[in-house]
């Protein structure tokens, strides 16, 4: 176990993937998998709803991984694993019901742009960000300000504004998206 402890702190995902590909050591893979197992279990719960099904799925995904990881070139392990796990769950849903299941649109709301934080981080964009926040619809503006500037969590915002917590989340998500569009526009104009 000491050995496992050691590799989990010193090796990156990519290194462990490489290590597994060359040595086929099950412990290497187990270690890599345990980094994401909690997340995968949550993901499976999200799709399959039943804890029993989700537990089986986590184990099946592990087994799928033992063969697939050797076959594919994996650049970003986390993103790849996310996709693999999601596909696995969707496949399971499909086989459970002969009727095709359409995934709830709510589930999709999270697959968002990951680059927003990069844009926000840039200091010279602060001015345009302020401008763009001003352009947002009132509810989105309020939610974004409370979340990002005053660092309140969803529950606090919901309590303060008496709006449903799910609505708060979608305000923030939509606000983020609108912000990004607005800031991209400004960046383009500047570039011209």
């Amino acid at each position: 176990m000491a050995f496992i402890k050691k590799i989990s702190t010193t090796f990156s995902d990519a290194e462990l993937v490489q290590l597994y590909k060359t040595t086929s050591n099950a412990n290497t893979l187990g270690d890599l998998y345990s980094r994401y197992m909690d997340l995968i279990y949550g993901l499976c719960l999200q799709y399959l709803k039943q804890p029993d099904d989700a537990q089986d799925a986590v184990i099946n995904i592990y087994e799928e991984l033992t063969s697939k990881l050797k076959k594919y070139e994996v650049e970003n392990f986390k993103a790849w694993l996310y996709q693999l796990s999601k596909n696995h769950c969707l496949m399971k849903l499909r086989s459970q019901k002969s009727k095709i299941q359409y995934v709830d649109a709510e589930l999709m709301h999270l697959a968002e742009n990951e680059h927003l934080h990069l844009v926000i981080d840039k200091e010279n964009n602060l001015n345009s960000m302020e401008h763009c926040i001003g352009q947002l619809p009132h509810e989105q503006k309020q939610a974004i300000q409370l979340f990002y500037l005053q660092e309140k969590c969803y529950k606090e915002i919901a309590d303060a504004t008496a709006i449903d917590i799910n609505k708060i989340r979608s305000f923030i998500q939509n606000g983020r998206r609108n912000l990004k569009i607005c800031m991209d526009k400004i960046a383009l104009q500047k570039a011209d």
Partner: protein
Amino acid sequence: MNTETTRYTASDFAKYHAGTMPMQQMHALEKAALEDPFLADALEGYKNTTTPIDDVAAIKKIILQKQKPSYTTFFKIGKVALAVAASTILVVAATWFYFWQANKNVTNTVATNAIESNQNVDTTLFDDVLKYDTVAINKNGNVATSSSTEQNKNKILLPQANGIVVYTPPNPTIFADTSIQLRDDSKETTKFDVASTKISNNVAVQNQMNRYYNQQGNVTDKKGGPLKNVTIKDVATNNTTVTDKLGRFKLQTQDSSAVVIISNIGYTAKEVQLNNRTVTQPIVLDKNVENIDAEVVVTGFSTKKGETNIDSYKEKSTASSTTVLNGKVVGIQTKPQSSSKKTKFNSKLDTSFIEPKWLKTYLKNNLIPVFSDNNKSVKGVVTLVFEINEEGKAINIVVTKSLTSICDSQAINLIKNAPNWDKISAKWQKIVVYF
């Protein structure tokens, strides 16, 4: 994921949903979830369990058990035992292979129209149907089976000429669960309307879509450098395409193993059979030094407005564009490569095009000699077809006969940057640039 962020665990998620997490941490988790859809899904998912920590512990235990066997067996078994095991496996494998082969023949005779084909097209396309015994048909009419047995895994079945696809499931018991799905490119699955039903253990699927096969590949020279604007012509249908900057091409064929002719000026043409070829193996063209001429001649011709469109040129005239010009255009001397297609074009060509007076001098003054690697100047022709817009500028320039990438781009630039073309004379232009 270069920046190492906090790794959230089941207990964090449990605390979050139980409301025992400090507000600040909740905010941090929500913020991270907005950046990371994986985390966001997981966070949502934990709503569905009341015992998250026990659940995860149970999974961990099972996965740890799965890791053990690979460890112990290897250290305990001695060399002799290993040798015995190896030979046993060999015998078993050989027997299995023999029976498998025999079995295969039986299936073939029983289901005479079963198609045996296991060309691996693009298995990733069918990635999420691999786990189950499924027949999937994509828009192109390719049928992929995915089965729980290794033998039938990833098998791509091809429809017969009458559009019937026959799939033989590995055994009748599994067959009960076989589902047939129609997959389109948007990755949505809809249940396929099965025209005919189960006959013994065969499924016949009527596929009513137009079938074609997407072939792709790439062309390189001997050194492995990509060749662009190489012509690829399907022998059966005469469909033609050209390679892009990276030497890649895509061509739709009616036959899964279509024969194409790959030709490029300065290179020896090659006949190749495409077997749902993926880009892994490049097609290599050898240089041919004979085709090379030493003069600089510029010429052009025009077509009547509206009578010809550029596509017909691209498809049919590429292989013999010089032949088409021969005798039709002022000031050009070409050596015909073949005379077969000539008559098709005669009726459509209008020789009233008058070459702009400035063109010859313009090209003469601006053409820069191109040198190859061994310092010899490159000689040959580049043929371009393009459209003249209302401002008299050349647009939509297509190289129909390519020389080298440098010559091609030089010719394109010359045409692009040329003084205004006479917009009345013709809408379409074809220019041959002699290097």
